[in-house]
């Protein structure tokens, strides 16, 4: 017979009350786990989406030439006809410390070419990475697959009077237009896109590129660090973060996190209240019992230990169950809340440990006053019979 024998036996006897307490706390912890997991999973989902929706790091040659805008984003000083980056050097980007955060690197070569009596800006791109980065593109037709295939911006299509299936001559070579972009409202509308290798050849820039866009998956967004890391690898290039993208992303995520934390706070408060009321009720029900304990020589600290031990056991169980229920809830809710249908549920050990620890702290804190109240009971009053 030890103090924990009393606590355990009492829990066994008051199954209904303890089940209510466990469920109350479990729901609280479960809600927090669900919210946190959803937030994390959705944040990750949103991050992926946003990362996929555009570049957030720009690699351009060191130059003090003309200003140029691309896609509504300031590219800084780029003189595309004068200086380029060696394409082979781009491979070094994959060797930076944060290389796992890199979602896509999209090299581009730019140059002016005459087509049908018009001077047109030809952009050589790697279509696989370009399409991954620019998921908002709607193509009437197909994306180029072969060397002599072109994708036209909507304005370029009108000016050149060319549509899918037409053939255009560039520097005496025939190119088939396989697709036309829907209006994007960006500079893409006036461009002619060709496969990178072919464009390099047409522009006489084999092995060179004009700029590279980098899309970084930024959990925690170490964009600043990544910019420095890439700049170290490419000393001849100018590497800059596209601040508006980074800041917009952070703002959206922070808003979502703030909402989740506020919700979690409310739930924590309600959970604590349930524990407090139940434990207080339990203590009041056990007035006589506590009087007996005191009469036979239990110290106040012994009474507190019994009550807190009970609270700890219930909280531990509630924490475990709450984690399970919370993850279950998150699994059910995620498909409805995340944008991507394949958004993955994140099983985080910290959330598991944290939810159990939180339940324990919550249960103990909320039971502290009831335990103090119990320990301070006047044994004579408690027993009344005496």
């Amino acid at each position, binding site marked *: 017979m030890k103090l924990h024998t009393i606590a355990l036996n009492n829990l066994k006897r008051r199954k209904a009350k303890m089940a209510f307490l466990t469920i109350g706390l479990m729901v609280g912890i479960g809600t927090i786990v669900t919210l946190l997991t959803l937030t994390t999973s959705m944040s990750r989902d949103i991050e992926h989406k946003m990362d996929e929706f555009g570049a957030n790091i720009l690699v351009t040659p060191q130059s003090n030439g003309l200003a140029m805008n691309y896609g509504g984003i300031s590219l800084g000083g780029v003189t595309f006809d004068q200086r380029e980056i060696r394409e082979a050097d781009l491979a070094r980007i994959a060797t930076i410390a944060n290389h796992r955060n890199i979602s896509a690197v999209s090299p581009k070569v730019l140059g002016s070419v005459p087509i049908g009596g018009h001077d047109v800006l030809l952009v050589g791109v790697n279509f696989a990475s370009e399409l991954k980065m620019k998921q908002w593109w709607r193509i009437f037709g197909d994306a180029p697959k072969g060397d002599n295939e072109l994708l036209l911006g909507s304005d370029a299509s009108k000016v050149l009077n060319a549509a899918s299936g037409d053939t255009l001559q560039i520097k005496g070579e025939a190119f088939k237009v396989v697709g036309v972009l829907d209006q994007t409202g960006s500079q893409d509308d006036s461009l002619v896109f060709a496969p990178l290798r072919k464009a390099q050849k047409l522009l006489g820039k084999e092995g060179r590129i004009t700029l590279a866009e980098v899309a970084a998956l930024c959990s925690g967004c170490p964009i600043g660090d990544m910019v420095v890391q890439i700049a170290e690898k490419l000393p001849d290039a100018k590497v800059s973060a596209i601040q508006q993208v980074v800041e917009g992303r952070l703002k959206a995520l922070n808003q979502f996190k703030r909402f989740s934390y506020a919700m979690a706070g409310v739930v924590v408060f309600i959970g604590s209240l349930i524990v407090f009321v139940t434990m207080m009720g339990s203590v009041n029900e056990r007035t006589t019992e506590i009087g007996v*304990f005191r009469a*036979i020589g239990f110290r*106040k600290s012994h009474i507190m230990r019994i009550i807190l031990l009970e609270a700890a056991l219930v909280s531990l169980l509630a924490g475990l169950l709450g984690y399970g229920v919370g993850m279950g809830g998150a699994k059910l809710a995620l498909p409805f809340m995340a944008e991507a249908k394949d958004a993955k549920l994140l099983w985080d050990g910290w959330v598991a440990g944290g939810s159990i620890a939180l339940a324990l702290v919550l249960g103990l804190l909320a039971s502290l006053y009831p335990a103090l109240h119990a320990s301070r009971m006047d044994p004579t009053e408690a027993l009344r019979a005496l």
Partner: protein
Amino acid sequence: MPLIEINNLTKHYTSGGETVEALRGVDIVIEAGEFITVMGQSGSGKSTLLSVLGGMNHPTSGEVEMAGVRLYRLPGEKLADFRAQNLGFVFQSFHLIPYLTALENVMLPLAIVKVKNAQKQAAARQALGRVGLGAKAGRLPNQLSGGEQERVAIARAIVNTPHILLADEPTGNLDSRTSDEVMALFRELNAAGQTIVMVTHNPDNGRYSDRTITLKDGRVV
């Protein structure tokens, strides 16, 4: 040297703005091994006297000296320790813990004592044996009769071999035959050297004790 010495004990309560004088200058001396019955009508102060003797109710004035210790001069939780080591209580309504077996109920005062569980069990079984309930150690209180519950309560009170056994109306909830059995048990314990102070309404119980102290309006008469 007396085991218990009560000097000029007073206890006043304030209830509804009025002061109630439950004990008014009580002087009692109890020798080791005595069996004392405290009698008196309702409101005479006998239950208050027992709670003060039990170290659970600070007197307004006066001294309670027990086994050489001035009870209410003990600091902090030392009074609780004193109760654990020197006193045994038997309550009118038994006050057994419903979710503990008879054996566990008897072991309860030992839950805070640092000895091996096997020793605690042995002591509890011995105490249960003394009250004739060795065979019902595994039963819960609701599986025992009123008399049996009272016996478990007595076993619990003596398991720590206290200097003094305090009993508050121990036969108050029992029929006359069971009452006689319980009183005989008290007598038996007293014969073995146990000092007992028992509060009772029942004048018949007085015949089992060595001495009867009668209280009236908070005074010994």
